[in-house]
């Protein structure tokens, strides 16, 4: 007796439900989407819905507590764009990014070049440099608050021993931002080093050998071979670090609270203060939307100006 036909054996092609031997067309079409549904749902809940909500709130007046949130049009944006606080925060954030990003990337490339070999001590040093990246930012900020305290800090105590007067690290508006740049660099540089090491190790040795045969000096080799070939890594780190610089919050919140005299009042710190301390969620959301636009604009500029110069093959 012949075996009972199964769906797979159902020639020439279709079952009563319209499915082919390789499956139902409808299911085949939907399957890829079904696979990404869990991830899309996660991203929607934690990214897209908050973005849309934030945009909605930026046109409203709300204090988190009132049952109503009246629509106020562009009032929150007008308030922000006409306030000196916003422009100060933008200036301070831009300064922070302008100095901290090149410092981070420059130092990281230098250190990574030094740590590329696979010896025991370089592996140990890589771990040491990476350690701050995986340490709590709050802990780091608290420790550095004490290090840079004017009267009770370690930094001034050391300076005192070599005859240098106290420096008001966190109280002088001309210095405080530099201290934050320093601490942020110390915290983040380990990650940049690791990425750079991976980028440097991907450069074929033959290129260095050829350059060596041609009599290229170390600086020449670095400029002509290392720098161009590590450009994709630099571009990636540039995108990431600029975003991070514009979103820096924890070290500011713990070490200076945006002071002294608003000298370190960066955009996210202002956003937190406006929204969560002064109860003005509408203006806080408008600031978040402006920050979003600024970051998109910066990403586009970077893509146009630098992205075209990046080559992904040796």
């Amino acid at each position: 007796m012949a075996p009972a036909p199964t769906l797979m054996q159902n020639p020439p092609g279709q079952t009563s439900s319209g499915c082919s031997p390789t499956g139902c067309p409808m299911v085949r079409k939907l399957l890829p989407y079904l696979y990404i549904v869990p991830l899309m749902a996660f991203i929607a809940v934690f990214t897209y819905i908050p973005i849309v909500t934030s945009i909605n709130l930026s046109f409203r007046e709300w204090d988190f507590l009132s049952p109503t949130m009246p629509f106020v049009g562009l009032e929150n944006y007008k308030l922000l764009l006409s306030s000196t606080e916003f422009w100060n925060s933008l200036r301070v954030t831009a300064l922070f990014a302008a100095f901290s990003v090149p410092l981070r990337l420059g130092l990281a490339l230098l250190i990574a070049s030094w740590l590329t070999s696979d010896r025991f001590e370089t592996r140990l040093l890589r771990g040491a440099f990476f350690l701050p990246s995986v340490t709590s930012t709050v802990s780091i900020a608290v420790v550095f608050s004490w290090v840079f305290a004017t009267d009770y800090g370690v930094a001034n105590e050391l300076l005192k021993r070599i005859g240098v007067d106290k420096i008001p690290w966190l109280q002088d508006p001309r210095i405080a931002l530099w201290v934050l740049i320093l601490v942020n660099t110390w915290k983040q540089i380990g990650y940049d080093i690791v990425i750079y090491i991976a980028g440097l190790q991907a450069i074929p040795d033959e290129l260095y050998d050829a350059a060596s045969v041609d009599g290229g000096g170390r600086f020449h080799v670095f400029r002509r071979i290392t720098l161009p070939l590590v450009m994709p890594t630099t571009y990636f780190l540039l995108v990431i670090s600029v975003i991070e610089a514009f979103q820096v919050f924890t070290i500011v919140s713990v070490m200076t609270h945006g002071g002294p005299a608003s000298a370190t009042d960066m955009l996210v710190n202002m956003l937190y203060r406006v929204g969560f301390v002064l109860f003005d969620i509408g203006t806080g959301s408008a600031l978040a939307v402006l920050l979003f636009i600024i970051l998109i604009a910066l990403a586009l500029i970077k893509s146009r100006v630098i992205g075209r110069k990046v080559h992904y093959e040796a």
Partner: protein
Amino acid sequence: MTRNFLKLAGASLIALVGATSISMAATTITFWHSFDPEKPNGKALAEIIGNFEAANPGIDIQSEFIGNYNDIVAKLQAAIPAHREPDAVIMEVTRYGLFADRGVLTDLSDYVEKDPLKNDLFDFAREVGMFKGKNYIVPFNSSTPVLYYNKDIFARAGFAEEPALKTYDDILKVSKQITEKLGVEGITGIAAPGQFARWGLVMDNDSDLIDSKTGDILLDSANTIEAYQWMASLVHEHKVASADGVTDEDMGRDAFLQGKVGIMLNSTGTYVRSKKAIGENLAVRPMPCNKVCSVPIGGAGIGILSTAEQDVKDAAYKFISFAANPESNAIWFAGTGYMPINKHTADQQKAKDALAKQPGIDVAISQLDFARGRPRPPVVTWMRASEYDLWQAMALGQRDVKEVLTEFAAKTRAEAERLAK
């Protein structure tokens, strides 16, 4: 095998049903507070909660340390729209008005009216819980600022006897002498006053930040400006207070606890910590009376969120009432230094022992004759949050005090109008 499996399944089922019935029987209250469990205040609170749960086996208090008063306000406002708010919360006495005004807190007037506790609470303790004629919080930790000093530092700075510490001039003079004599050792005269002490120093100068009767903003009144000018001068002009305590108020307190500062103006709730840190060298005196003797009543009370279920509200009020009874209040007073709020607390042995063995713990009580509750309209939350940055600018000498306070007063008036809409 099958029999064993069935036995195991049966036992699990019984355990599950048992556990479920226990958890169903208990009313759980989530309670947010501001007392670090590692510090004396947190330990005293844990003891009170433990006693309450022992006396009320059907009620479980899930207490959570959130941070300081500012952190509680920030976290609460974010939790409310997310429906993640607690059932009960500690709220600072000047900052709960906004939450009461917006209907976030339950009106406890009926509970308090029916509770014999109402006759046992001191008048000041009843008053701090009232907003627009209704009772929204019951005080738990009440305080006034007091003047702490380090006897050893005073002696080493050349004070054979206790100097006068009554007026701004007195305090400046003493602070200068300490800084001049002991500055080389890294010791400063006074800790930069924190916000609670700043408010107290303004009141000592016969003024206020907001008039407690009329609600008028007094930030730009002559006496308030004068008080701030004096406070700021301690840091940037006379350099008798470290700027570190301006950018981080806790640093000023911590430096005092480490024996690096001669005088500290701070809440009486810091008493036990200070005593532990400095021991016999700690002296406590009343706040100065520059133009008048007047101190603010601070601290916090416990409120119940209006979103809590009725049975949870009932249980939460039971806890609130328990925490304010003489036994609990004595534990709190002796363990922290916060003032008694119950008239019968002093009769408790723990309180008697504390008064006998902890000199200075009674200073805040003796200040009650001239202590005043502070206004708590919705704008106070905004005003207090904004004041920190401005104080920094004034104390570090970056902005003129009069100009800052005039501008701040105008902004506060505008914000008060906006909030009143």
